[in-house]
């Protein structure tokens, strides 16, 4: 997707991207997280932005491979805030963002491992007192400390928002896909690790986690104790029943009625 953010006046824009360790849905191997990679892509689409990648978490070998996936997008360095594997990373990120004071923070809308609640951006925003928007699809312009962006809505729709910076924005799979990770830059990039005290997530320790059970979508709810009702509910074709039928009307009258319904349902732009 071509980006068309006007680049006039945000030279030197400070953008932080929070990245996490992802997990391939089929092979279960550690990888760059898809939405976070899209967040990096979004940052790279901004002209003249100074991009800083931040990762807070444990740092074993698997994770290094995954983090290098972001470096392979043409990033020189990732700031790694070392945390214990059971840590709540929000306090560490709050400190880091408060110190670095970026104008924009991008991140995926939820992690691919662990709780994956998608709460982190909201908790950061609450702690920092910054606005947060989700479903960022495109940054259109940044001028005078205000960003004009497009937000992805359900059913493929888009909404234009103007948000005062500094702000946090999350991207989901409606954002443009991330570029391939190239091997060379991935090797050359640097993981700048820094230790930071960890706050253990005690609540999570009490939870029970297991592989997700398959949940087919609900089909019919046929509760009736009457065998005939259950049979009819299954075998009868779907009918609405009591609609309005306009016969013997002019095309204009028919069109008028349809127009009225479309207006009521608010589907006309």
């Amino acid at each position, binding site marked *: 997707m071509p980006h068309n953010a006007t680049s006039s006046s945000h030279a030197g824009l400070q953008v932080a991207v929070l990245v996490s360790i992802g997990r391939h849905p089929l092979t279960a191997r550690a990888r760059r997280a898809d939405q976070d990679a899209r967040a990096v892509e979004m940052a790279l689409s901004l002209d003249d932005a100074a991009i800083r990648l931040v990762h807070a978490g444990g740092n074993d070998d698997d994770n290094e491979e995954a983090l290098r996936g972001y470096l392979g997008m043409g990033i020189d360095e990732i700031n790694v805030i070392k945390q214990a594997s059971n840590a709540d990373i929000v306090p560490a990120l709050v400190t880091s963002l408060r110190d670095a004071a970026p104008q924009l923070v991008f991140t995926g809308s939820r992690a691919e491992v662990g709780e*994956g*609640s998608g709460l982190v951006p909201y908790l950061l925003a609450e702690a920092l007192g910054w606005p947060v*928007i989700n479903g960022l699809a495109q940054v259109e312009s940044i001028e005078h400390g205000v960003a004009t962006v497009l937000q992805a809505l*359900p059913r493929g*729709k888009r*909404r*234009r928002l103007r948000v005062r910076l500094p702000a946090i924005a999350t991207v989901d799979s409606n954002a443009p896909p991330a570029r391939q990770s190239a091997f060379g830059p991935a090797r050359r990039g640097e993981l700048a690790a820094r230790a930071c005290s960890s706050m253990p997530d005690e609540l999570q320790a009490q939870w029970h986690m297991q592989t997700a059970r398959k949940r087919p979508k609900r089909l019919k*709810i046929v509760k009736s104790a009457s065998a005939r009702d259950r049979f009819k509910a299954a075998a009868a074709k779907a009918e609405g029943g009591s*609609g309005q039928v306009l016969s013997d009307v002019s095309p204009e009258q028919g069109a008028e009625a349809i127009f009225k319904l479309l207006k009521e349902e608010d589907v006309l*732009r």
Partner: protein
Amino acid sequence: MSDIVRRDPRKEWIARNRLHPEHSEVLAELCGGASPSEWIGPSGLTRRNPHAVGFTGPNGIKRIDRSGAQQAATQPGGRQAQPKDTRRRVEIETPHFLVAVVPDLPGGRLSSHDRDVLGLARQLADADPERPGAVLAIVFGAHKETTFDEAGVDRLLPMEDAESSGYLSELRIAALQSVERELAPRYWLLPDSSLGGGELGRRLAARLGERPATQVWQVEADVDSDTGWRCTARGAAGTKDITRDLPRVALALAECAEPVSETRHATQAVRLNQALPDVLGRIEDLGEVAVDPASVSLAEAEFILSAGNGVKDWEGYHHAAQVLGATEGASRVAVDDGYMPRDRQVGATGTWVSARVYVAVGISGAIQHLQGIQSCDKVVAINLNEGCDMVKRADLAVIGDAGEILAALVAHIEHYREQQQENRDAA
């Protein structure tokens, strides 16, 4: 004419007595307008009207009495009365606690997701019949919903948005904070939808300092839990199930519970005492942006203009779709005949759609097509054949030539837009 029934007991007696010599004549006379089932015609042969056999008996069921006691004046047995609404009415006068639900109300109506979450709220509220809770629905802005009672709402708190529409998360969080302060619900339940409840719920939890359970799909009673409830939630991008105590704030997935179907609730309106605080918004909504409807997947599209056999003017149809800003769909026949690509086919043999508004142009409604549109909210049929199944399914059907009606609709919309533009220019 008077509605009072005129009776002639002597003739009725003859009518009941099959052996009376005047039986047939009297029966025919008595029944006059009400169709006798049997009489002697001018040819001398017995004439029968089998449609008029029988009458509605005291149980409301058709009855045939060959003894001749059939009440000639009564109407012949018609269709049985519609079944009565047997749902139990529930009124919770003094709830011991509140379960607050913030439904999404897409398009101004409860979604099936909303109804599932309300079903879950009922599960929590009704667990202890000695100490019942009430389900409080908090509704922002204008809506078209009329069935909150059927969906399980005991209390309804309407919140007028400062602005009529748009992206108002910051305002809404402030409003929900006021609810928290004044009404202190025991639980907050929101649909974990991609915008709406999913976002609002996360904001709310962060604001209230509650750690929510997200993507909850099951809640079960559990005596070992501090709250008495255990929930199962999806984690790790849907690949894990997390079982944990149910917290105060829960964001639940569709089908987290069965929607309410057997009871009706009071839906009593409540208000907050304090006015809502002013909030300085840092996010401004500049409105929706037009997107190419063709770029929207058929399964996801909100508004579909679907074409079938009855469409003759294809150029006119495509033009109409463009003017309406609708995604194009098609019946199987239209695809078979080469007018539309296969990936536009709607129905069980093509794509299942979920449009809020589905306009079927010249589609008679084969059973597999109807199956594929069963989750559409509003169906509009444009068809020449008033008797076709699509017309029976539709909320609004216009009988007539598809090409002419579409052209009139396009003209109407264009005129409307011009007027709007003029108004804007004038302002």
